[in-house]
C-alpha cells in the first residue's frame, strides 16, 4: 500500500456503507458513509482538475468544520494535489490581519487554488487581489454533486510513496510560512505504527472535537480513524468550547473508545460541566483518553478522573503522548490500559543543575508525567548545548530520528536544514529519559502553547508594536502557566511613552484588543512599562526567557500557583 488514495480505496471497496463519520451539530447528527464521503470527494477532484489544479499543486482550504471541509480535503488528495487546512477565521479576527497572514502563506507556498465558502470569499479575494494571478479562489458550495461511484472512475494518479501528501501549518504569520510537508509514506507508516501501539482497529470509535488544522485533529482525530476503517464522531471545536459536555455525551451515545485532548481540556471538562448535563452518561467504553500537544500535568488527570469516575471512567484509560506535526504525529505513547508513570524529582536539582533526580520528600519534589516510550522505529536522544548526547536523567533538548519525519518545511529549504543535526530532528523541547520513557519538562524554542495551539511570540510583539504610543521593537510576549486552567496564558510587556495615567490605561486596552483581534488568541496579561525595561541581548535581540523571568519576579508572586491580580496599566 503506497498512498493515502489507495488506502482509502480499500475502505471504499470493503466497507462502503459503513458510517465513516458522524458529524455532530447541536443535537443533530449527520452520518456520512465511506461511499458518500469518497464519492463526494471524487466530484470535488473532478472540479479541481477541470479548474487546472495539477498533481503536486498545493490547495489551501479555509472552511469551517463540516462536510465541505472533509470532502474538499479528500478531493484535493484525489487529484494528486497537496491539501493544507487553515484555521477558519473567528468572527473577532480582524479581516485585514487575516489577509496579511494569507499573503504570508501564499508568498511561501504558492498554492494553485484556495477553497473557501461564500461568507468568506469576498475577504479572501480582497486580501489576495493582485498578489498572484494564477491562484484560483473556489467556493465549496459550487462543487458538483453527482452519482455515486465517482470514486471508482478517478484517473490513475501514478503517485509515489515519497510524494507529498499534505501540508500542516500552525497559525499566525510565522506559522503560516512554515508548512510541514508530509509524504504519503510518512503518513501511512505512522498511522500503522501508532495504531499497533494503541491497538486501534476498525472496531474503535474515535470521538473528537479537535480542529483539523492542527496535527492532533488532522491525524488522530480525522485521517487515522478513516484510514483504519474505524468510526469517527466529530464535532466542531467552537461548539465544544461552549458545551464541553457534548464530548462526554457523544462518548456515551456512540460507545466512544478513543479520544485525544490537550491538557487544558482535562481541566476544562472537569471544572465546567454541570451535573444536569451528565445525567445517564456512561463513560465505561472510553478505553483511552490521550493527553497530548501541550505540557501534561498530573493535577489535570486527577481532576478529570475525580469528576468522571462516577460516570464509569477508569483511571487506566488516562494516557499521555508526545507528538509533533514534524513526525506526522506521535513520537512517544504511554502504555494503553496502564496507569501513566509519574516521576517525582527533586525541585532544587531540576532548577539548578538540570538533573532529574528521584526525590523521596514530597514537599521538595515535582511530579512529572511520563510521555511513555518511543514508537517502533523511532529513536530519541537528549542533547546538551553542544549537541552531544547526555545520560539518563539529565535534562537537555529532545532530538528524534524516525522514517516518518517531514520531507521538509515547504518552500523553506533554509528552515529544513536548520531543523536537523546529523540526521536528528531537533524538537526545541526539553526533557529527559528514565527507564526507557520520555519526560518532557520544558522548551528551548520560544513558542507559546495556549490550549494546545502554538502561538509565535514575534507575531504578537509585532501587533503590539504597531499600536500608537508603543515603542516598536520593544514589546515582548511569552507564556505563563496557569495551574487552574492547565495551560499557558499569553503575557505581553510593552514599553510606552505616555505620561497621563488615564491615557496609559486606555493604551493598555488598545494593545490588548489589537492582539485579541489580530492574532487568534486572547492575551491575558498586558503590562505597560517605561522605556528601558525590556531586556535585549548584546546583539540587540529580544531575550524572551530573561524578560519572562523579570516579569514573574516583578509582577507575579514566586509561587506560580498563586494568581495575582493583574492591572492593565503599569503599577
Amino acid at each position, binding site marked *: 500500500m503506497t498512498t493515502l488514495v489507495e488506502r482509502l480505496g480499500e475502505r471504499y471497496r470493503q466497507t462502503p456503507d459503513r458510517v465513516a463519520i458522524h458529524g455532530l451539530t447541536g443535537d443533530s447528527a449527520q452520518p456520512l458513509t465511506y461511499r458518500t464521503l469518497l464519492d463526494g470527494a471524487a466530484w470535488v477532484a473532478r472540479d479541481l482538475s477541470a479548474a487546472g489544479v495539477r498533481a503536486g499543486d498545493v490547495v489551501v482550504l479555509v472552511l469551517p468544520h463540516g462536510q465541505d471541509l472533509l470532502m474538499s480535503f479528500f478531493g484535493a488528495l484525489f487529484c494528486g494535489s497537496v491539501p493544507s487546512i487553515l484555521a477558519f477565521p473567528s468572527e473577532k479576527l480582524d479581516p485585514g490581519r487575516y489577509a496579511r497572514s494569507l499573503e504570508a502563506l501564499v508568498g511561501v507556498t504558492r498554492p494553485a487554488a484556495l477553497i473557501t465558502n461564500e461568507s468568506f470569499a469576498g475577504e479572501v479575494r480582497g486580501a489576495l487581489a493582485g498578489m498572484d494571478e494564477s491562484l484560483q479562489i473556489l467556493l465549496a458550495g459550487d462543487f458538483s454533486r453527482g452519482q455515486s461511484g465517482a470514486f471508482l472512475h478517478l484517473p490513475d494518479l501514478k503517485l509515489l510513496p515519497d510524494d507529498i501528501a499534505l501540508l500542516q501549518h500552525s497559525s499566525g504569520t510565522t506559522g503560516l510560512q512554515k508548512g510541514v510537508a508530509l509524504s504519503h509514506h510518512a503518513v501511512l507508516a505512522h498511522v500503522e505504527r501508532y495504531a499497533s501501539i494503541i491497538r486501534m482497529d476498525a472496531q474503535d470509535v474515535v470521538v473528537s472535537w479537535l480542529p483539523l488544522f492542527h496535527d492532533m485533529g488532522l491525524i488522530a482525530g480525522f485521517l487515522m480513524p478513516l484510514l483504519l476503517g474505524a468510526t469517527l464522531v466529530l464535532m466542531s471545536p467552537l461548539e465544544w468550547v461552549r458545551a464541553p459536555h457534548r464530548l462526554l455525551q457523544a462518548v456515551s451515545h456512540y460507545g466512544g473508545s478513543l479520544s485525544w485532548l490537550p491538557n487544558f481540556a482535562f481541566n476544562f471538562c472537569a471544572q*465546567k460541566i454541570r451535573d444536569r448535563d451528565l445525567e445517564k452518561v456512561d463513560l465505561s467504553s472510553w478505553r483511552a483518553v490521550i493527553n497530548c500537544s501541550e505540557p501534561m500535568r498530573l493535577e489535570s488527570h486527577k481532576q478529570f478522573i475525580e469528576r468522571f469516575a462516577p460516570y464509569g471512567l477508569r483511571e487506566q484509560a488516562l494516557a499521555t503522548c508526545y507528538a509533533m506535526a514534524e513526525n506526522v504525529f506521535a513520537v512517544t505513547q504511554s502504555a494503553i490500559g496502564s496507569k501513566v508513570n509519574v516521576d517525582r524529582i527533586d525541585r532544587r536539582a531540576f532548577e539548578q543543575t538540570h538533573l532529574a533526580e528521584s526525590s523521596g520528600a514530597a514537599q521538595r519534589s515535582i511530579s512529572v508525567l511520563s510521555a511513555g516510550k518511543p514508537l517502533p522505529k523511532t529513536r530519541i536522544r537528549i542533547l546538551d548545548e553542544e549537541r552531544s548526547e547526555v545520560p539518563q536523567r539529565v535534562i537537555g533538548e529532545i532530538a528524534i530520528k524516525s522514517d516518518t519525519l517531514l520531507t521538509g518545511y515547504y518552500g523553506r529549504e533554509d528552515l529544513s536544514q536548520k531543523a536537523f543535526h546529523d540526521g536528528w530532528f531537533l524538537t526545541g523541547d526539553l526533557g529527559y529519559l528514565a527507564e526507557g520513557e520520555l519526560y518532557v519538562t520544558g522548551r528551548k524554542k520560544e513558542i507559546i502553547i495556549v490550549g494546545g495551539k502554538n502561538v509565535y511570540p514575534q507575531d504578537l510583539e509585532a501587533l503590539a508594536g504597531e499600536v500608537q504610543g508603543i515603542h516598536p521593537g520593544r514589546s515582548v510576549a511569552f507564556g505563563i502557566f496557569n495551574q487552574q486552567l492547565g495551560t499557558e496564558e499569553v503575557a505581553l510587556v510593552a514599553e510606552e511613552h505616555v505620561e497621563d495615567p488615564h491615557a496609559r490605561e486606555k493604551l493598555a486596552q488598545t494593545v490588548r484588543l489589537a492582539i485579541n483581534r489580530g492574532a487568534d488568541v486572547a492575551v491575558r496579561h498586558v503590562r505597560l512599562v517605561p522605556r528601558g525595561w525590556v531586556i535585549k541581548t548584546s546583539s540587540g535581540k529580544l531575550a524572551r526567557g530573561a524578560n519572562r523571568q523579570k516579569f514573574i519576579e516583578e509582577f507575579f508572586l514566586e509561587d506560580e500557583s498563586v494568581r495575582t491580580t493583574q492591572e492593565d496599566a503599569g503599577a
Partner: protein
Amino acid sequence: MKPPSEIRSRVHNEIVDYIAREILQNARRRIELDQALISSGLIDSFHLVDLALFVEAAFNVRIEDSELSTSVFDSVRELTEFIMERMQDDIA
C-alpha cells in the same frame, strides 16, 4: 416585589463586576454598557461557559449553550436584557 429597574441595575452591576474581576482579572476595569464583549475578543470563547455558569448561579435562570453567541448578546446591555427576559419567563 422589587421594581424592574432595581433588578436590572443589580443584574448589570453583578455582570460587570464578574467580567472585570474573574475574566479580565482586573477588578477596577470599567466596561461600557454597549462595549462589544465577544466580537471584540474581550471575552474569549474559553470564558463563555464561565459566564454562563455564573449567570445561572447568580440569577437562577437557565442558558442553553447555543445561546452563547453574538447573535444573542455581545454587550453587557444585551446580556442584562436577556437575563431580565428569562427571569420574566420563569415567573410567568
